[in-house]
């Protein structure tokens, strides 16, 4: 099966390779190519991006993600030079979360539009109003609450589980697998969050989250 390919355009070779490393964990069968740096230093390399586009193209199309403004211009230019607007698309998405989301979607065999949507959706923090019912209430005992590191740990602790897990605080709710969404709730030490889960592994998911919160996120 030919899958949608992904190109990571960055000013930094190491940043591009790091994003590829992370996204590849989600997608062993997707061609994800790094195009970062220029002549060994920072910059974006049009020729490298064009080569990466060719490598990532298997016929199903290519999604390009970028870091800073001029990387977008180089990516746009490389796509424009292809002369086929359906062959590759530059997507506005957060580089890391967008790449991971795009890789996971491409791995499933989704088409170009679906992969683009998955990457672009990583931009919007999933959030919904909740009624405060259901799930378990947990007290955050660490000082920083759901700040970056704890939010990342919480999202990671759910890896491999078949369960939809939501975290609610202050009248809002987010997918527990979205570190940005968790941080966006603004829950700090001393706050109580409500965690709910559905799906075959719901019980295991709740017990993992409870254990992590009870340990104070290992702070």
């Amino acid at each position: 099966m030919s899958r949608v390919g992904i190109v990571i355009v960055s000013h930094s070779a190491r940043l591009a390779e790091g994003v590829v490393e992370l996204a590849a964990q989600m997608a062993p069968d997707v061609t994800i190519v790094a195009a970062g740096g220029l002549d060994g230093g920072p910059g974006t390399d049009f020729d490298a991006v064009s080569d990466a586009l060719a490598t990532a193209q298997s016929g199903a199309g290519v999604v390009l993600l970028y870091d800073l403004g001029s990387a977008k211009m180089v990516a746009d230019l490389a796509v424009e030079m292809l002369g086929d607007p359906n062959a590759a698309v530059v997507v506005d998405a957060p580089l890391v979360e967008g790449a991971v989301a795009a890789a996971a979607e491409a791995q499933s065999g989704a088409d170009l539009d679906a992969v683009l949507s998955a990457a672009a959706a990583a931009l919007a923090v999933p959030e919904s109003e909740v009624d405060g019912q259901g799930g378990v209430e947990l007290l955050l005992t660490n000082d920083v609450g759901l700040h970056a590191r704890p939010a990342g740990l919480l999202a990671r602790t759910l890896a491999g589980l078949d369960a939809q897990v939501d975290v609610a605080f202050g009248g809002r709710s987010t997918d527990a697998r979205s570190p940005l969404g968790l941080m966006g709730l603004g829950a700090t030490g001393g706050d109580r969050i409500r965690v709910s889960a559905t799906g075959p592994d719901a019980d295991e998911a709740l017990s993992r989250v409870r254990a992590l919160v009870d340990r104070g996120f290992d702070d």
Partner: protein
Amino acid sequence: MGCDAAGVARAVRAAAELVTAHRDELVRLDQAIGDADHGENLKRGFGFVLAALDQSTPDTPGAVLKLVATTLISKVGGAAGPLYGTAFLRAATAVGAASELTPDLVSVALQAALDGVVARGKAEVGDKTMVDALTPAVEAARGSTVAEVLTAAAAAAEAGAESTIPLTARKGRASYLGERSAGHLDPGARSTSLMLRAFAEAAS
């Protein structure tokens, strides 16, 4: 001068020399509000342009402009590569296969270059970018000879570049500085005015 391929190549060489001579100034300007690479990037890029012109002599003005475009796109990192590359590429397309540039063709090429830069960079007048130099240059680019057109454009670009000093940047790396970007001449607007000045002098 004649505005055939050789004349346009001479104008490009003049621009390369002027930009290279102002490398340190452009670095200083970019140090104040950007990442300090504009002067070096352009010097380096135009170095490759000169080498490419030494290697081959394209036989139409459009082909010269296209060679400049592809070289800058490939060799210049940062926003300047794709932006100037796009400008030269659109100008090349605008003049087509003409063997000699007329005053009208030069005006049309400048307009096409501006349109390309705006499409690529999404900047508007007042955002503190090269668009602030190129837009008035296009508006002023009228005359009965190519030299007149380019001289008018260069003067307008210089005034346009100066007008960026009090502005707060809304595009590019400088926009991250917010109000702290005010009080500095935009390096991209400055390099645009330098290139147009070199073109004007080469045509006169």
